[in-house]
């Protein structure tokens, strides 16, 4: 039977146990060995896994606590999904200020990974909208953290990968909207230069910008793709689209291979599409959420994500080098997503989103050749002074991690001694005496 606590990329697979919490007054679970708080398991690699430890499943902490319809301040338990916040808030004229690529993440997970969305250039990351949260440490202390109180723990917990303790509840500032719809524009572009030009043009006029890249295109077409920009529409109401479909089982062999990828990328690039359209937020922000368990499409071996951010000055060169390396390897990626972040630095010690350009890729797990390609991408990112996203990683070297997140030792110092993830052990192993 499939492990209900596998990570979203289904790689790696590690032995682990879980205890579920249902109430926010429950004590920190008294289990032997290492523990790791866990939300909805949408991290791709091993940052939401423990190797032979116990996960603290916080999805049962899913109650709303208070909402002020005048100010848009929402207090809720940390296991509440962004999906449920949207279902609650949109009819009341409010929206999550930062919407990552899936709404099936918990508030706790969104804090622990300081997630970002297509509006980073306007709103920064999730942590920027966090007013306070309650942290439960393994020694039983409950600590209310705000930007001005327990500042160090506040900063360490934002983007802190769950390592500082269990986030029990949080207070968020929502963003006012007129309805559930987006005014969306899509523009085909021919190369990377056009992407950067479009992005620079649109960031001042559009709340959301993002591009899909045909990463099998080479030569003069390198970096061609589809640019999407959008604003919240002032009309359209709140009508919700149909129920999601589900991938019912894991196919024995992944249907995603070189041949189907090439066909998909070519078709998707050529597909005629309206330049402007009105789209419900479900289909604009979360197209993949309408296909539940889509990760199964990659077959039993799972898949690897690679998302990097590279500082503005080196971004054009580095992106060209990365796309060149992928096109050369010919392994391709179906969901290559490119976006220019805004100028806001992350609020957490090890926040991923920062000024620069980010590229997200996914690859069917093909063994050593996939790992070698990703190592090559890491080197390009490191040389450009960038970082690789822990939430999507299952294999980066400790060197790549530490160069991308120079403040990691401050997080290590604030880490709850009972808490450890497979990811953290992997990227810090050689620095800790106990390992």
């Amino acid at each position, binding site marked *: *039977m*499939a492990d*209900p606590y596998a990570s979203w990329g289904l790689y790696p697979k590690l032995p682990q146990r879980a205890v*579920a919490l*249902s*109430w*926010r*007054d429950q004590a920190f679970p008294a289990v032997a060995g290492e523990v790791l708080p866990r939300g909805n398991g949408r991290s791709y690699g091993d940052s939401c896994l423990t190797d032979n430890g116990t996960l603290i499943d916080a999805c*049962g902490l899913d*109650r*709303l*606590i*208070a*909402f002020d319809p005048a100010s848009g301040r929402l207090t809720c338990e940390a296991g509440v999904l962004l999906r449920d916040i949207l279902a*609650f808030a949109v009819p009341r004229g409010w929206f999550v200020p930062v919407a990552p690529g899936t709404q099936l993440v918990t508030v706790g997970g969104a804090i622990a990974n300081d997630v970002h969305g297509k509006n980073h250039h306007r709103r920064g990351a999730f942590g920027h909208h966090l007013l306070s949260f309650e942290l439960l440490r393994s020694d039983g202390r409950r600590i209310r953290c705000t930007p001005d109180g327990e500042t160090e723990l506040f900063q360490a917990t934002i983007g802190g990968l769950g390592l500082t303790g269990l986030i029990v509840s949080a207070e968020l500032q929502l963003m006012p909207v007129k309805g559930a719809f987006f005014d969306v524009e899509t523009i085909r572009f021919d190369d990377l230069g056009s992407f950067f030009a479009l992005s620079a043009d649109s960031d001042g006029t559009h709340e959301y910008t993002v591009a899909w890249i045909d990463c099998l295109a080479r030569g003069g077409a390198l970096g061609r793709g589809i640019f999407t920009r959008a604003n919240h529409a002032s009309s359209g109401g709140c009508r919700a689209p149909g129920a999601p479909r589900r991938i019912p089982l894991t196919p024995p062999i992944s249907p995603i291979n070189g041949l189907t990828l090439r066909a998909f990328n070519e078709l998707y690039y050529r597909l005629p599409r309206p330049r402007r359209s009105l789209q419900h937020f479900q289909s604009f922000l979360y197209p993949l959420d309408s296909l539940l368990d889509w990760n199964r499409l990659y077959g039993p071996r799972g898949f690897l994500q690679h998302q990097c951010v590279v500082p503005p000055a080196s971004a054009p060169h580095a992106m060209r080098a990365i796309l060149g390396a992928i096109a050369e390897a010919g392994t391709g990626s179906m969901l290559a997503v490119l976006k220019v972040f805004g100028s806001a630095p992350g609020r957490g010690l090890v926040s991923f989103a920062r000024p620069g350009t980010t590229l997200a890729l996914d690859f069917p797990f093909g063994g050593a050749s996939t790992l070698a390609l990703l190592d090559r991408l890491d080197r390009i990112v490191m040389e450009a002074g960038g970082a690789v996203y822990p939430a999507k990683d299952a294999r980066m070297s400790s060197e790549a991690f530490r160069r991308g997140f120079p403040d990691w030792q401050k997080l290590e110092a604030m880490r709850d001694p009972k808490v450890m993830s497979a990811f953290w052990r992997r990227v810090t192993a050689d620095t800790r005496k106990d390992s």
Partner: protein
Amino acid sequence: MRKVLIVGATSAIAQATARLLAAKGDHLFLAGRAAERLEMVRQDLAVRGAASVGVFTIDANDRARHEALLNAAEQAMGGLDTVLIAHGSLPDQRSCETSVEQTLAAIETNALSVITLATLIANRFEACRAGTIAVISSVAGDRGRKSNYVYGASKGMVSLFLQGLRNRLAAVGVQVLTIKPGFVDTPMTAAIPKGGPLWAKPDTIAADILAAIEKKRDVVYLPWFWWGIMLIIRLIPERIFKRLSL
């Protein structure tokens, strides 16, 4: 706008159902044992849009206070038209086998307290010739099995009692709904290894409960496929069934 009393309001299925009712703007009155946790549920439902949410701390086995509970609910909501009885406990079958005390305690919680409440509510609803009594029984009450016949017997008593009550109240238009969930992933079943197609989430069960109330159903198996499973289980001759390990 319904006026709903929920007994066992901190149970996972009750909470999930209450959220659906809150989103529809119903009045809710919550009864449960743990005051602090009732308060957490109350806050959640109030934020989600319930017209009003009242709470009443009570151990369902304290049968002498059932009348007081119903009075408080009626007073808080200005009436009462729907009751969901959702409390219960899953006893450890093995311990029950060596402890008459535990066996009787399980029957007291899962059956006697429910029958007391249902009787009192039925008399009120019969008088005003309207209302819905929805009770969470279990597929376990359909046939006794060695793996959990104490729990099964108490749920079976509830199912049979409700069947008779439904027969009595049909003439006056009061709905008596027997809800028979299969395996549901809740804190009550935390000790059982989970996974696979037979396990349902409380949210799914809750949506089905609401639909069953609104469609004026009598008996529902949740999810629906348990109807087929239990049909087969009921049809197995006792001579064979007694040798099975189910």
